[in-house]
């Protein structure tokens, strides 16, 4: 499509969009049921889904993991994983029955009529082929080019449209030479290569930083608007859905619970489930989660500077050596002169995007990495000169909770053994008193005692995170380092864990160092915030101050990139 043709075609599209509002929907799903497994073991995961996408419209399906949102999308393009099969209902695209289509017909529909942008840009490009090859492959598979030269020209055009400016040069590069955002651009390019009528985007930006997410989705929106492509957008993020879609469909446990115009859903949710979802979604308009009625939030820095800090970080620097060919290596500053203080019983959030050095700071605080220079002070004592024995003692006062609930518990140990391990290592009490302590900790994280004899793989992500919290609390530490501890959880579970953490904080007078990339979570979970960019602290202060009047451009950009920031949330129960 050349630039000269563009205005006319756009006008034509606009008129056709108007016509189609009164006419037929582009994608029509009626009473769709999907089951996994066969015979006696069959389990229905979609129980009759009705859904319309009109030409040129963006529809978002929102739901937690296991709600069936991705299964719905996979059923449309006939790519259900494993033993999944459609057991009833109909799916039609422009009047063509997709469920009855043969494999060959479906292959020609995929790509040409329905484009697909997958979730994980890291694993959806083949690492052994160049980006150019993979885009050309898509171009040729859809019959858009008859020879090599045409395919190449079209591939460059596609990548340019997707926002990769120097596409000619980039064509020869391999996926590992691309950043996450660039890979996602390439995948969007592949998805839109054949100008499909419908684009299905399954969590297209959930693996990316918020600022990158914003840029990519803006670009995707302008691209699809220009071409009149309808978009079926799958996401777990209500704010993002509201910002990007005309209509929202909320799914829960394989059923649609509510659907309607985006704003209406967010401002006045009707169904109890949607109401809970909206209420649990953290946003910058939310309040700090408070355990009790007392005021916990800190409004001004002055209120806390007098209090003696439990954790103090002074001019922390961490350099890594990066091999630069041969035997030479260059120093790389991952953390560059970071300083902050956390007063007792407060939460400091260390915020930044990937590569900002926030996790490295956490590791140095936890004594898992040695700083290149600078110091970490715990209760006023400098940790850099500590002997092994002193560091061992320090570990009982400072415990971590990690991000991945599936990776942080040894799968071969029972829950009881896992929670008791710190007690055993530090020689606390005898077998019987340790068991009592395990029960006490399970009570504190609201899990039944019989869980102690179970293994981690029987629990959900949120429950595993509770176990990780119980283990961290076993030695009665005063400091807990939460390294993206709620980032992998669904909204409702996340909210629940954040409330649990707030309760434990006020009950046990804990001090939290909260590492996160999610500013909306910071709003509800932290008192103080410290924004990091490329190893440096850009800005720090109380949450109220920073959110009300950010001084630095970077902070402003981060805040602006929070999806759905301007949309007032209703449904607070």
């Amino acid at each position, binding site marked *: 499509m050349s630039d000269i043709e563009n205005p006319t075609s756009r006008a034509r599209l606009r008129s056709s969009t108007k016509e189609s509002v009164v006419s037929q929907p582009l994608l029509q799903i009626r009473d769709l049921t999907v089951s996994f497994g066969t015979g006696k073991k069959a389990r229905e995961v979609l129980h009759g889904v009705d859904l319309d996408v009109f030409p040129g419209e963006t529809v978002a399906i929102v739901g937690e993991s296991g709600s069936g949102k991705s299964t719905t999308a996979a059923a449309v393009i006939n790519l259900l994983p494993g033993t999944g099969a459609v057991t009833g209902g109909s799916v039609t695209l422009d009047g063509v029955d997709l469920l009855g289509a043969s494999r060959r017909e479906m292959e020609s529909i995929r790509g040409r009529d329905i484009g697909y942008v997958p979730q994980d840009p890291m694993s959806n490009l083949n690492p052994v082929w160049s980006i150019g090859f993979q885009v050309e492959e898509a171009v040729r598979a859809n019959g858009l080019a008859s020879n090599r030269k045409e395919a190449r020209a079209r591939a460059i055009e596609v990548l340019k449209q997707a926002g990769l400016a120097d596409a000619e040069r980039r064509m020869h590069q391999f996926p590992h030479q691309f950043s996450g955002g660039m890979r996602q651009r390439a995948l969007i390019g592949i998805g839109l290569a054949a100008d499909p009528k419908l684009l299905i985007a399954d969590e297209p930006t959930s693996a990316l930083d918020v600022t990158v997410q914003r840029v990519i989705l803006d670009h995707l929106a302008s691209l699809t608007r220009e071409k009149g492509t309808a978009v079926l957008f799958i996401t777990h993020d209500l704010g993002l859905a509201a910002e990007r879609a005309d209509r929202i469909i909320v799914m829960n446990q394989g059923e649609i619970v509510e659907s*309607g115009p985006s704003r209406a859903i967010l401002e006045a949710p009707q169904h109890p489930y949607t109401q809970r979802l909206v209420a649990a979604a953290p946003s910058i308009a939310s309040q700090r989660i408070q355990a009790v009625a007392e005021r916990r939030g800190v409004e001004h820095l002055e209120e806390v500077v007098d209090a003696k800090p439990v954790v103090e970080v002074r001019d922390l620097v961490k350099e890594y050596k990066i091999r630069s060919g041969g035997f030479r290596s260059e120093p790389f500053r991952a953390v560059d002169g970071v300083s902050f203080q956390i007063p007792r019983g407060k939460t400091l959030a260390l915020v930044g995007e990937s590569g900002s050095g926030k996790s490295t700071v956490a590791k140095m605080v936890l004594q*898992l990495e040695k700083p290149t220079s600078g110091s970490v002070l715990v209760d006023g004592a400098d940790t850099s000169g500590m002997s092994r024995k002193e560091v061992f003692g320090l570990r009982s006062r400072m415990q971590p909770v*990690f991000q991945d609930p599936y990776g942080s518990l040894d799968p*071969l140990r029972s829950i009881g053994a896992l929670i008791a391990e710190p007690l055993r290592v530090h020689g606390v009490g005898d077998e019987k008193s340790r068991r009592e302590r395990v029960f006490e900790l399970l009570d504190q994280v609201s899990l039944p005692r019989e*869980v102690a004899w179970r293994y981690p793989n029987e629990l959900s992500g949120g429950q595993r995170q509770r176990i990780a919290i119980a283990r961290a609390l076993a030695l009665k530490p005063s400091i807990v380092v939460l390294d993206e501890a709620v980032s992998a959880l669904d909204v409702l579970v996340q909210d629940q864990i954040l409330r649990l953490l707030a309760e434990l904080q006020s009950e046990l007078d804990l001090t939290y160092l909260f590492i996160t990339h999610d500013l909306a979570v910071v709003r509800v979970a932290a008192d103080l915030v410290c924004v990091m960019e490329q190893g440096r602290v850009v800005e720090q202060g109380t949450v109220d101050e920073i959110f009300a009047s950010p001084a630095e451009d970077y902070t402003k950009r981060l805040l602006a990139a929070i999806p759905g920031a301007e949309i007032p949330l209703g449904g607070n129960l």
Partner: protein
Amino acid sequence: MSSNSTHYVAAAQTETVVVDQLHLSDKKSNLWLDAWRDLRRRPTFWVSVVLCVFIIVMAVVPNLFTSVGPSGAACDLANSNADASAGHPLGYNFLGCDIWSRLVHGTRTSVLVGVMATAISTVIGVIMGALAGFYGGFLDSLLSRVGDVFFTIPYIIAAVVVMSVLADYRNEFVLALAIGGFSWASTARIARAEVLRVKQSDYVTASISIGLSRFRTMLTHVLPNAMAPVIVVTTLSLGTAIVAESTLSFLGVGLGGATVSWGADISQAQTQIRSAPLALFWPSLALTVTVLAFITLGELLRDAVDPKSRAQR
């Protein structure tokens, strides 16, 4: 009829669902329990288990199965290559010894050497692989290169050399040492790769931040989680080790002439292959069945502990 702007609300459920409800099944489950549940439904598993148990019992108490001696006074040249008769179900070999009795008594040598050789190669392999994978750096380079050197030496040839040099000290243990000492490199590679993978887990970092030393972390959290593929390789190499013993005995560098072993029997019987083919057939069958039983067990075990292959079936 739905249109662009309708606001649809599903009928609300009367009960409010608890967020993140705990669903505990009646059955406990972890990697090994799941593998066991998967295995016990498979007939091939039970066949190979019964065979393996049978073979091991035969190796430990051969006299349960035969009262006839395998060699020496029990052999009578008058019975050379004689057919089966009452009490001698498989007949006699060239030297007039009872073939069934030699099979039963030969089991001990074969299985003992096989088990010892496998144990030796597994222990060396796991130690080398775990140290290389867990500590990394220079130690990794050093141990991995040593492993590569051993990888390039065919262990049969190495064992032939060792057994020839140590001709005066030929016994089961030396033979097992010769086989196991040269076949650990592949186990080491697998152990190293697994340890490298497990080392990345958050639970390893978590246990270090609890205060557990690195070495104890390796023992309690890394190694147990890295053992599944190693155990599978172990059962597979048990089969090959038994073959190796037979091969060495066949080549005449195995155990001394007085020792009863399948390999030695196969070696002796091959000269008589035209006149008495059965004398060759029976020890070969015993060897094949034993190796198959162990390898089948190993493969079933591998499939059972690998959730991916389990899902495909």
